[in-house]
């Protein structure tokens, strides 16, 4: 059990699925919680665009409707990341990661801008494709070890998960957390509403950190 990134402080039991709080997962949970609360209370930025070579300056309008929708998506994204970092079941983890992927699409897709929507669509396609390696990885782990519980897998009483299944899980998380690739992408940040776009990057960072722990212990 010590290989779980520290001894669990507390294990919450939901039938077959355990939710465990080790020092590692709790740290990630607190990080997700802080940023979700920030997304909840902060006011969105208002972008001002200056036209080069002239004196023209115009503010981009953000409708209340769109702002509320994106805030809802950002909070859902925060909750999904919280679930993904603490869950102790492999299939449940893949579902939470898929939820992070779809909420990320939602945060970006609400913006009424052709470039942004193109980017959101392509990102959505990748997120949808990424469910294939995720579910395949979980299915192979269940077939070769007979369990999906990360706690049972870490205890060493069942065979180790094959390398292929771990590679699939990593690949799936890379696909769902595609947002880092967009850090270099101007289109994404042309979208107004700063705290919500940050949530995309943060959630993918959190699921990357979590999957690193998962593939090391199973």
């Amino acid at each position, binding site marked *: 059990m010590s290989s779980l990134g520290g001894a669990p402080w507390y294990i919450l039991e939901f039938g077959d699925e355990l939710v465990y709080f080790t020092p590692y997962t709790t740290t990630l949970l607190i990080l997700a919680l802080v940023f979700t609360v920030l997304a909840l209370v902060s006011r969105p930025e208002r972008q001002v665009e200056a036209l080069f070579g002239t004196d023209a300056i115009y503010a981009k309008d953000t409708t209340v409707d769109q702002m509320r929708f994106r805030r809802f998506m950002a909070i859902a994204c925060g909750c999904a990341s919280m679930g993904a970092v603490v869950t102790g079941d492999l299939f449940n983890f893949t579902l939470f990661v898929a939820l992070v992927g*779809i909420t990320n699409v939602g945060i970006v897709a609400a913006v009424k801008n052709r470039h942004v929507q193109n980017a959101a669509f392509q*990102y959505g396609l990748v997120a949808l494709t990424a469910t294939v390696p995720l579910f395949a990885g979980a299915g192979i782990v*269940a077939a070769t070890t007979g369990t999906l519980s990360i706690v049972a897998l870490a205890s060493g009483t069942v065979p180790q998960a094959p390398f292929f299944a771990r590679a699939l899980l990593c690949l799936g998380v890379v696909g769902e957390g595609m947002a880092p690739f967009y850090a270099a992408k101007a289109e994404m940040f042309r979208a107004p509403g700063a705290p919500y776009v940050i949530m995309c990057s943060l959630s993918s960072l959190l699921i990357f950190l979590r999957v690193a722990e998962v593939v090391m212990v199973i």
Partner: protein
Amino acid sequence: MIIRRISDVLSNYENILPLFAGGCAIVFLIGVLLLPLPYYDDQLYPKTIDRNSSLDPYDRGGPPFTQVVIKSQYPENSPTAGYVTTYLTPFSWFLANTTHHLGTTIVAHPGGIIDEILYNTRGLDTVVEPTILFIAFAIASFLFRREP
């Protein structure tokens, strides 16, 4: 120089899906080369098929309101697991007793091993799954109702 070229390719969002699909194809190919994988025989929720049962292939192992033993991961966490498995609605109880062809429609009725796993022992999965559906519909209906 090479980094600049890579980031140039990545910065075009049209390229990201082919890149990811190519990566998946390569990993699947590696998976084929790593076969065979051993199948672990002591599985959870093993499937038993009783061809003579009127509920074949979803025989529930007993009359309604009795508890059957379910091979779950942590039986101590679900003390009432086994009741949902045997439950039949009055209508499907009637059908099961009069015909031998209830077959797979039984999956649709409340009760049964699938419901036991989905709602009870692995209930958290089923909480996340409708949430994904809910979020996807929220996105779709938000875009649908907005002025184009």
